[in-house]
């Protein structure tokens, strides 16, 4: 079954390359609060003048997948058109009590937890419909999490291009080196999506990796 699934994916990828789709579909993945929506908003603001979703310090603010099609990222000597898919944060545990510690009432915390579980499931299902992934990590946090290991493993198994975005480099204690040490086989681009730091390098790398 696994072999059949792999053959199907390889064939689909090959057909996609031969009959070149208009735009590659790139998923933005990562744990909750890594800055995925902040990054999606930054990319969209820079190239379309719009945003894709609200951000919050409470984890699991994004609980549904959001898509923006045909975003052209361009700069000096490069241009690539992508469909951007912003996904809910992946997690292996969700406890509504955690949301209550941010001041949410019990009912609201339980509702948020339920929606967050559905968001994680939706994000995982989307892995089958992508051409590549931007894996966003919080540079101040430990990168050896199961969520990161699982996303990296899935992209490698599907042989899809992936770029690791070391976000929040503006914060004290941030280290892109720690992430490079954890996943030495992948390109790591250090940025701050919130401050717009090093975005030019990210756009150039996105164009060369996903173009």
């Amino acid at each position, binding site marked *: 079954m696994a072999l059949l699934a792999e053959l199907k994916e390889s064939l689909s990828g090959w057909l996609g390359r031969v009959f070149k789709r208009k735009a590659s579909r790139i998923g933005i993945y990562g744990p909750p609060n890594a800055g995925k929506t902040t990054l999606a908003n930054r990319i969209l603001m820079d190239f379309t003048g719009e945003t894709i979703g609200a951000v919050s310090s409470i984890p699991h603010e994004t609980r549904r997948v959001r898509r923006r099609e045909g975003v052209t990222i361009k700069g000096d000597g490069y241009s690539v058109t992508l469909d951007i898919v912003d996904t809910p944060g992946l997690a*292996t545990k969700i406890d509504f009590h955690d949301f209550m510690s941010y001041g949410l009432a019990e009912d609201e915390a339980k509702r948020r937890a339920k929606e967050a*579980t559905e968001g994680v*499931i939706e994000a*995982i299902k989307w*892995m089958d419909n992508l051409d590549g992934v931007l894996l966003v990590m919080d540079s101040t946090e430990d990168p050896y999490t199961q969520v990161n290991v699982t996303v990296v493993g899935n992209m490698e198994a599907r042989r899809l291009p992936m770029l690791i975005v070391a976000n929040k480099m503006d914060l004290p204690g941030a280290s892109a080196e720690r992430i490079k040490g954890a996943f030495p*086989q992948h390109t790591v681009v250090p940025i701050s999506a919130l401050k717009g730091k090093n975005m030019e390098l990210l756009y150039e790398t996105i164009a060369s990796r996903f173009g």
Partner: protein
Amino acid sequence: MGDVQINMISANKLQSMSTMDKIRLILDDVSKGRIVILEKGLDPREEAQLIEHTMLKIRDSQFYGIEIQSYPRSPSPWSILRRDGNRLTVIGPADRMKTVKRERDVIEAIIS
């Protein structure tokens, strides 16, 4: 502190099980408060399915999820092609197991 049951599953047993059997075994044990150690962990697609089924269990019952840790897979393309990247994996209930240190070759966890 109450007793903690640890179930260690051999690579041989895992090899003879389907993905759904593995996921059912893990979630059944962990939701009963047990720690599960897999001699050879799940492959990436199975890990994604485990997360998916963990979310369904959280949504539908009084379960807060799992703490799961394995060493990172070998970065060499050869080992990815040979699919020999699965390494020992520890899984426990999120409300009882807490990982305190993770490195390429060391995992330290506290069980309460």
